[in-house]
């Protein structure tokens, strides 16, 4: 019987799902046609299972027709079409961008999404993206730094709350609601980035802060519960140890009489 159970783990984990037609062909190509594959592999999109066809369309299961317009292939968008291209998924951010001075300058030298975020190697957005070199290409450096300063405290707080949730999840606490609230707060916060107006950023950061307060209160509640468990658990463990010691003492006294 044992061998039948225990072969259990003889096979290591199955391979990841097969590469799509896009990755198979472009992955073997040199130069600019192959480079996006390696860039994408390091991206936040790859980490979340967003593949070539999710943005560029086409049929990833059929190499012959993968790039057929009949299968929805979109190819590379024009620079002015990039916000709508990305905005199919990043809806709120696209709206904020379009309403901002950046969005209004689209087609007249203003930046689109990839100007700041890059394209295939796109990473999870963070404040690191706001730097003097990138923003200073068009603006006076102090303007970018003012916005960054207004965002920094909230960004740090979101980061620390995310870090605080992980150990709670590891202890089997249900943190899905808290994660959802934090996700929403993060989204609201990221939308602020794209307004590129210091006053709106400061006002918006305040509202995001209220949501973060609620998450913090939930985390504090879980920590209080953990402390309660540890307190009573410690008492129970102590009682068992005491009972064990009494058993040892009784055994020794009886042994002396034997």
């Amino acid at each position, binding site marked *: 019987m*044992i061998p039948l159970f225990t072969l*259990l783990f003889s096979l290591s984990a199955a391979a990841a799902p097969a590469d799509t037609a896009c990755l198979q062909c472009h992955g073997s190509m040199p130069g600019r046609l192959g480079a996006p594959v390696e860039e994408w592999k390091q991206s936040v999109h790859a980490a979340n299972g967003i593949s070539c066809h999710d943005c560029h369309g086409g049929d990833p299961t059929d190499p012959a027709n993968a790039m057929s317009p009949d299968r929805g292939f979109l190819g590379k968008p024009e620079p002015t079409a990039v916000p709508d291209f990305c905005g199919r998924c990043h809806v709120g951010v696209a709206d904020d961008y379009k309403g901002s001075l950046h969005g209004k300058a689209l087609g007249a030298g203003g930046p689109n999404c990839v100007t700041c975020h890059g394209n295939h190697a796109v990473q999870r957005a963070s404040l690191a993206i706001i730097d003097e070199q990138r923003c200073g290409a068009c603006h006076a450096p102090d303007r970018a730094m003012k916005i960054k300063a207004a965002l920094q405290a909230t960004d740090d707080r979101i980061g620390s709350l995310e870090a605080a949730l992980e150990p709670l999840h590891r202890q089997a606490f*249900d943190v899905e609601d808290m994660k959802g609230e934090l996700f929403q707060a993060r989204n609201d916060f990221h939308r602020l980035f794209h307004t590129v107006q210091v006053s709106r950023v400061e006002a918006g950061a305040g509202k995001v802060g209220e949501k973060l307060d609620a998450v913090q209160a939930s985390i504090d509640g879980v920590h209080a519960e953990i402390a309660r468990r540890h307190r009573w658990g410690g008492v129970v463990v102590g009682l068992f140890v005491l009972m064990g010691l009494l058993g040892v003492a009784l*055994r020794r006294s009886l042994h002396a009489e034997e």
Partner: protein
Amino acid sequence: MTTLARKAVDWLDERVGIREAFRENATEYRVPRNINVFYSLGTVLLVLFGLQFLTGILLLAHYVPHPDQAFDSVKRIVNEVPYGWLARNLHAVGSNLAIVVLLLHMLSVIFMGSYKKPRELTWLSGFILFNLGLALCLTGYLLPWSQLSFWATTVSTEAAGSVPVIGEYLVRIARGAPTVGGATLGRFFALHVVVLPLGLLAIIGAHLMLVRRIGISRPPFGKPGEVVKKGVHEDHPDGIPFFPNYVAEEIAVVSFVLAGLFAIAVFSPEVFIPADALEPADPFNTPAHIKPEWYFLWAYQTLKIMPTEFIGLAVQGAFMTFLALLPFVDRKAERHPFRRPLFLSLFVGIIALFIGISVWGHYS
């Protein structure tokens, strides 16, 4: 004793002779004078199995054995049901601790040669209990329907396929379908909460009956006491009373084990609840590395280093068969390990080999 309690005992005594039974099985029941702490491991196991039954019943009240609801029901137990987290942690940690104590119990019996004639059947029933314990762990693993549950069971059931001729049939029987799914969960649930516990209870009963009927074996160490045969029973007239003398020692050992169990369950349950056990099963997302529980690592690595899985299975089968039939293979009367150099070498060597292979499996 209060008057009411005395009256209750009197009432029972008149009908079932409770005082006589207690005298015969406790105060006048003598165990060897040189009995040692390892003899208490059977009682520890009884307590641990009892706790598994109790916590299992508490979990059963809220668990839903359906692929769409199993994971959420466990999440609810841990997060919403009062003290559900404690029941779940005690159950998960307790199962591991039970395997540790089962192994210690078996190793101490082997080391002291207690499996030898006339206790062959006691050994065999204990060996079956060990296997039932492993089967309970394996079937219980699937029930939370986590990533770990799903993929460990997928691979374990796949393993049966390497048996020649009937392999595919065995896989189908184990899963109830071509792939792990609702049918698998249903049959593992039935095995875990009905079939295996009933089997465990029955074999525990047989094991205890054999222990009591034949008598406790005299340890091969220390000053040997007198042994008087009464039929098949070995009596120890110069031994110590089971109650209260040895019961005090058992209370001490059980208390320390329970202290350890509660300490892990309350302060560090993650030691026995891996991260993949906290994610819902996803048939389309295979975790990077599936590693078995620590007590299956030796088997896992054995299969990996053998030329084929079938050879690996055969080696494991041969070893387990040898272990089951140990009293019938090793029939010499000598029980002191230091007067059995070949036995002692094999005992130490095989344990070292198992630990080495398990560590290798862990890091491979």
